[in-house]
């Protein structure tokens, strides 16, 4: 292993600038002549826009411009798009109502964009925004997932009768029904997967600048995927041609999915800076983030499993209603369909699976990917159902899982729901987790807690997820509008240091360290001589960005492939310089050597040689700079078992997580410290969903949890110190042997926590978030 190479817990290179306050976030950037945008947002969940009077706002001090939806239409800008098609049961594509960036004729959720006010100062823009007079015709609203498609509910879009976006059946219905009819036992569960507000620490922001000399727009954005933003805004929103649009995602303070999407504010800022010929900046305040960031989850589902007499799963049937909000966000249709139903096999050999997903529109903020995106919903449903099945069969939760796991010699394993799992050893992870959690010692701990008046519970969750989002073939088959490969460019400068350009984007994951470790391992260049560059369409080649735990599994491999190309070219250059045959050149630890001689040349010397070439033979190009693209053959399938132990105070309903053990298979780890941090963060996110985070709208569509006064985010004192270990397997299709780790905790944790609470109380089910009052009531009923 190279020093600081693969497997070393190198301290994060990027942290220096963050820790000394030199991070460069979108809102940190200010430019000469900058104006400020404030959006006028609908206070109503559902209303006609009868008239918008902007005259008083236009006359207010400092106001540069006020625009409405008509101005965008006049310039042919928009509407916003959804990039993935789902075919409904009538054979038609999902209903895709028009999604204007500034509302036209109607508003459909509280926070919907009605107008934008641009002024010299932020305070002036806010003052003027209050002067925009809007005559709303308030309509009844529907916010509840289960109610939205019922008869008699308010209709949100003419294009979507009964508010249904799609009704998507998948699987062999008749075979599943037959299996249920002859089953020894059927276990059933109805559950809600609670709606979440993603809450990245840095709110969304945009700064648009237009250069009238070059006709180029430069848009700094809080984005996880600058090239995707540029592509969508160019190809679909008509903002500017790609070569005249530069999108920069500078330092970004957390994404968790919510910064993947192309939002109204971003498009409007990009357009308005050209319209007013002045730079325009917008930064969401926290209330705006609550109202208008894409939310996550929000399912209501019924799940049934059919079993034989030994508790083997024979078939699974899942009926789901998924809330997509008022409009389709960029990947809104994909999350409750392909990213959800195709994970319903979980870690189990269940041979038959049937799923129906009805996706509905409601008068709420659009719903899209949030850390895990579909997989947490699938995992929560399945892992809750498995515990119910265990209870119904009188089996220990660990035992029923063990009986149904896909055995390690069955990989690659073709599930009945499209996915073909790459590698796994689920028993190994389970056994390791049981030992780490001292599962055997639980009854004694529970008895000790009981003597103190507390109720202890333990809960398991065995998850599998599909990440390393790619491969393009699969994504295309699934209706994706774009392929999902990744790109890299590895460039030596003449003096031997290296710039690595990646199409992924780091917004907290530590790519600048992990990718540098990869390059130091492969090329033998010291890690301090390697700089990782990302997030600027003017600096990096086209790439797909970061989400779905894909950056290392897809983008890392592209970097490795570029390094391989450099080594191959370096051999030619070294052969020329050392006057040897190319076939005699070997490369190891940063040096090219001639086999059987002491003649050697460092890779830095090769790089210098490549930029000051003399008499290169025909066919040998100068320069030392290579591109590579990687399109994997499959997704990556991290998996693991998490075990949560809780102590419930029956007097108050408070839940204390006293122990949490996670054993994951992420394949090979490049930087174990960073991976552990990702695991911790993911688990905390999952604990947040399980215990604290519940986004609530009232029946009129007002967001009741629109600030941290009412929306509870997990804090340090809500979580224990985690016990983390690994049970790696080698995914054969991934050249680096890596999987993805960023979402695993958020996927694995919720069912582990709820299973533990259910176990502590001796009840059948409790919906998330398990707030103190809910737990107290359940404890009262169970007592």
């Amino acid at each position, binding site marked *: 292993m190279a020093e600081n190479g693969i497997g070393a817990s190198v301290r994060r290179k990027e942290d220096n600038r963050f820790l000394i306050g030199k991070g460069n976030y979108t809102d940190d950037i200010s430019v000469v002549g900058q104006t400020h945008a404030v959006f006028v947002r609908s206070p109503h969940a559902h209303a006609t826009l009868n008239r918008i009077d902007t005259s008083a706002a236009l006359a207010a001090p400092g106001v540069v411009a006020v625009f409405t939806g008509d101005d965008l239409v006049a310039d042919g800008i928009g509407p916003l798009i959804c990039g993935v098609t789902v075919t409904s049961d009538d054979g038609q594509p999902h209903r895709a109502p028009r999604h204007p960036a500034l509302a036209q004729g109607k508003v459909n959720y509280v926070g919907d964009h009605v107008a934008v006010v641009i002024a010299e100062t932020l*305070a002036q823009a806010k003052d003027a925004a209050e002067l925009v007079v809007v005559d709303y015709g308030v309509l009844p609203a529907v916010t509840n997932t289960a109610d939205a498609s019922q008869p008699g509910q308010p209709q949100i879009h003419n294009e979507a009768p009964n508010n249904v976006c799609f009704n998507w059946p998948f699987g062999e219905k008749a075979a599943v029904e037959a299996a249920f009819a002859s089953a020894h036992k059927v276990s059933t569960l109805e559950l809600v997967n609670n709606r979440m507000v993603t809450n990245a620490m840095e709110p969304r922001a945009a700064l648009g600048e237009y250069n009238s000399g070059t006709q180029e727009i430069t848009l700094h954005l809080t984005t996880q995927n600058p090239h995707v933003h540029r592509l969508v805004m160019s190809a679909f929103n008509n903002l500017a041609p790609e070569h005249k649009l530069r999108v920069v995602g500078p330092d970004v303070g957390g994404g968790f999915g919510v910064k993947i999407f192309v939002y109204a504010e971003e498009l409007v800022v990009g357009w308005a800076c050209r319209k007013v010929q002045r730079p325009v900046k917008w930064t969401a305040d926290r209330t705006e983030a609550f109202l208008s960031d894409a939310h996550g989850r929000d399912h209501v589902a019924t799940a049934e499993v059919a079993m034989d007499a030994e508790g083997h799963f024979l078939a699974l049937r899942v009926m789901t209603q998924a809330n997509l909000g008022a409009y389709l966000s960029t990947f809104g249709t994909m999350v409750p369909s392909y990213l959800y139903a195709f994970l319903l096999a979980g870690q189990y050999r269940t041979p038959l699976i049937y799923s129906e997903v009805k996706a509905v529109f409601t008068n709420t903020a659009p719903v899209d990917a949030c850390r895990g995106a579909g997989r947490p919903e699938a995992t929560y449903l399945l892992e809750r159902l498995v515990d119910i099945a265990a209870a119904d069969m009188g089996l220990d939760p660990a035992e029923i899982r063990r009986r149904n796991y896909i055995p390690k010699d069955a990989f690659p394993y073709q599930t009945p729901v499209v996915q073909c799992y790459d590698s796994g050893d689920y028993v190994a992870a389970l056994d390791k987790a049981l030992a780490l959690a001292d599962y055997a010692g639980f009854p004694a701990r529970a008895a000790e807690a009981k003597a103190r008046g507390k109720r202890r519970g333990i809960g398991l969750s065995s998850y599998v997820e599909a990440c390393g989002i790619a491969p393009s073939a699969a994504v295309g088959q699934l209706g994706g509008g774009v392929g999902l490969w990744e790109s890299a460019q590895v460039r030596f400068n003449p003096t031997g240091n290296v710039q690595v350009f990646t199409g992924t984007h780091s917004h907290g994951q530590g790519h600048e360290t992990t990718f540098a470790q990869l390059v130091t391992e492969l090329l033998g260049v010291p890690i301090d001589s390697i700089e990782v560059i990302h997030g600027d369409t003017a600096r990096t080649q086209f790439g797909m960005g970061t989400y779905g735990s894909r950056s290392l599994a897809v983008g890392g491999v592209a970097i490795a492939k570029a390094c391989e190309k450099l080594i191959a070219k370096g051999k030619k250059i070294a052969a020329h310089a050392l006057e040897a045959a190319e076939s005699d050149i070997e490369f190891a630890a940063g040096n090219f050597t001639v086999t059987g001689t002491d003649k050697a040349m460092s890779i830095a010397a090769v790089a210098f040689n490549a930029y000051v070439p003399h008499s290169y033979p025909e066919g040998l190009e100068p320069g030392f700079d290579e591109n590579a693209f990687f399109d994997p053959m499959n997704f990556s399938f991290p998996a693991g078992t998490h075990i949560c132990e809780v102590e419930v105070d029956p007097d108050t309903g408070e839940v204390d997580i006293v122990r949490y053990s996670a054993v994951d298979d992420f394949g090979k780890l490049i930087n174990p410290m960073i991976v552990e941090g990702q695991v911790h963060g993911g688990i905390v996110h999952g604990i947040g969903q399980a215990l604290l985070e519940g986004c609530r709208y009232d029946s009129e569509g007002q967001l009741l*949890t629109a600030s941290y006064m*009412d929306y509870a985010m997990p804090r340090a004192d809500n979580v224990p110190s985690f016990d983390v270990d690994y049970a790696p397997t080698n995914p054969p299709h991934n050249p680096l042997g890596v999987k993805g780790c960023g979402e695993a905790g958020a996927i694995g944790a919720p069912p582990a926590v709820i299973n533990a609470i259910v176990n502590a109380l001796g009840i059948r089910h409790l919906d998330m978030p398990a707030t103190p009052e809910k737990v*107290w009531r359940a404890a009262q009923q169970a007592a």
Partner: protein
Amino acid sequence: MYEFTYHKAESIEAAIATLQQSDDAKFVAGGQTMLPTMKHRLASPSDLIDLGGIAALRGIEVNGDALVIGAMTTHATVAASAEVKKLIPALAGLAGNIGDPAVRNRGTLGGSIANNDPAADYPAALIALGASVKTNMREIAADDFFTGMFETALAENELIVSVRFPKPQAAAYMKFENPASRYAVVGVFVAKTKDGIRVGVTGATPCAHRGLRLEAALNKDFSPAAIDSVELPVEKMNSDIHASAEYRAHLVKVMTKRAVTACG
């Protein structure tokens, strides 16, 4: 935030004079409620009169068998005060668990009780300890001070100078925190005083109140078990997305029991 005129008062008299001369002025103490409210454009005072420069409003004194704490004394100062820890440790503990460090370093005793948030901690302590509020005009007993949700007995030109807390024989505060805001869903302050047991309850109702039924039970039998048979009026309790009235009524009893246990 809308535009306003800022004044820094150097004396109580100057503060009152400025208030009287202004259109719609507000005093600002630590600003932990006032400023966020203004930032959200939910309040738009014409003038803000900063009380931070008035030395007479600061400080902690032991006066016989009582603590006198200046209105502008921050929560952090109260929490760290050796005098408070010695005379009324439960009060120091209460102050040390308000909000977060930033709030405690800015927020003040006077600001908190003048605002009288239904979920604030201090009102429960004032009520249970039989404290009195000294203003530029008079002295007001805690029982008479908190009059309704965000309402107090303070007159228009009245400014809190200090609060006098008689030392109890024993006291304890138990708070069940809102998981989001960490304000009190329910907070119960129990004090053994020379006049018997006093109980201050915050969070449960629109305004902090004396728990007379709880006091009656505890005056007969100062034990957690004494609370079991107390019936609290559920219909008077607050109910919101975090806690129903029934749950709050239950929590009042649980927190009271815990406070009794902590009193020893």
